[in-house]
């Protein structure tokens, strides 16, 4: 398998180690009320799809960057490669955006309440 590194170009997969499903980026909040369940799901349960699979690879023999590789588990074809840090930042931006919209929605609700 050849992994097309965003910075270094095509590299042989033997330079990398694989950690597993890319969902491991989304570590649950340990202070949340349902942390027990969330960590059980996070740590042990896997979709394990036959087909496209997003997974974390570490460029151990190279620049030691973490990558999110989208790969077909039936053909071993590598479809897409991104820096894990970019993926994590994008996900974070999305959630903050969501909370921000939620907050504005709450504010709006408050405004409507105040008006009535």
């Amino acid at each position, binding site marked *: *398998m050849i992994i097309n590194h965003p910075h270094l170009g095509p590299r*042989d*997969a*033997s330079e990398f*180690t*694989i*950690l*597993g*499903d890319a969902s491991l980026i989304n570590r649950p909040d340990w202070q949340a009320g349902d942390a027990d369940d969330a960590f*059980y*799901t996070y*740590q*042990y*349960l*896997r*979709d*394990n*799809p*036959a087909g496209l*699979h997003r*997974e974390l690879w570490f460029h151990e023999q190279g620049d030691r960057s973490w990558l999110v590789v989208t*790969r077909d*588990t*039936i*053909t*071993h074809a590598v479809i897409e490669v991104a820096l894990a840090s970019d993926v994590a930042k994008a996900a974070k931006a999305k959630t903050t955006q969501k909370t921000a919209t939620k907050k504005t929605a709450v504010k709006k609700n408050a405004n409507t309440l105040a008006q009535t």
Partner: protein
Amino acid sequence: MRYSIWSLINQALTGNRNWTPVWREPEPKSHYDIVIVGGGGHGLATAFYLASRYGMKNIAVLEKGWIGSGNIGRNTTIVRSNYLLDGNEPFYEQSLQLWEGLEQDINYNAMMSQRGIINLYHSDAQRDSYVRRGNAMRLHGADAELLNQDQLRSLCPFLDYENARFPIMGGLLQKRAGTARHDAVAWGYARAADQRGVDIIQNCDVTDFLIKDGVCTGVETSKGTIRAGKIGVAVAGSTSRVMAKAGLRLPIESHVLQAFVTEGLKPVIPGVITFGAGHFYISQSDKGGLVFGGDIDGYNSYAQRGNLPVFEDVCEGGMAIMPMIGRARMLRNWGGIMDMSMDGSPIIDKTPIDHLYLNAGWCYGGFKATPASGLCFAHLLARDEPHKVATKLRLDRFRRGAMLDERGAGAQPNLH
């Protein structure tokens, strides 16, 4: 037809014209008491023990491909019970005992050969850990013998004892371990189950589960709807995608394991030998080919083929302990899909859905477990309680933190 020396002579004298098919090919009925999804070694063994030891009738085994097409026909045929943990060792020892009586049980020549397995050790620390493992085995009634270098030299003079990096200091021997003819095990179980009235239905793909109010009442298949009192799933590498149809996510990843065979050679390797410092195991088949393997490739795969870096790593492991095989030519290599669990140990348990039972997570040790897996799964299906040697092989052990992590690698399926 019962196989014996007399049936063999009789057939030989009549020109081998009167052999009958080894099992029937029935059309599926619309209802069974028990349906086993997956006609691999474990599924067939389950059906056999349900019929022979638990007196169950009206059983079907549904197989997507043909009997012997999956991992039961793709493994390296090693049979052993050299485990450490309390939750595992009694189970595998039960399995080895069943192996010892298997051919009589199923009236089929499975070519079970107890030629022994030797795990090599390469340091003082490793010897100590093998002493511990050997003691654990003996406490559970298995056999284990620690060999020092001189004893090992007399058994295996061809090993590279003076290897600069990993000198071979001795080994842990289990004499009762060995090899068996893998596809004969599938055929034998299928035939024996069939003779006891089990319907073996090949080319029958399970497409969905019939589930209502948390109770499973049957399966949709490519050959129509089949209703059942109880449904047991034993589909190894396909576990996640089959159980997803029932809405379950499992602590399992599917990985590819490769195996290799060389050209046929005169007898050179007396039993099974494993490398203690890398991952390499080897035996010699009765046809003479060296059969060997090593690590899984390490990434999720449903492809039934692997990549070259593991090929190289396995061969390096072989050359490190027995340089004599360096000139043997490799004939074949292939891959199989392993249901790697989160702690490296299997699951034989009920699921959160009533009447739906699961047998999975065999990692790359499923072949040796075939008889006990069948027996314990049959026990669970018949009695609704775990067999006494499978009480720890539970699905909820991950949530409870009661892991059976033989290797101590943590929740990292590709390291077990």
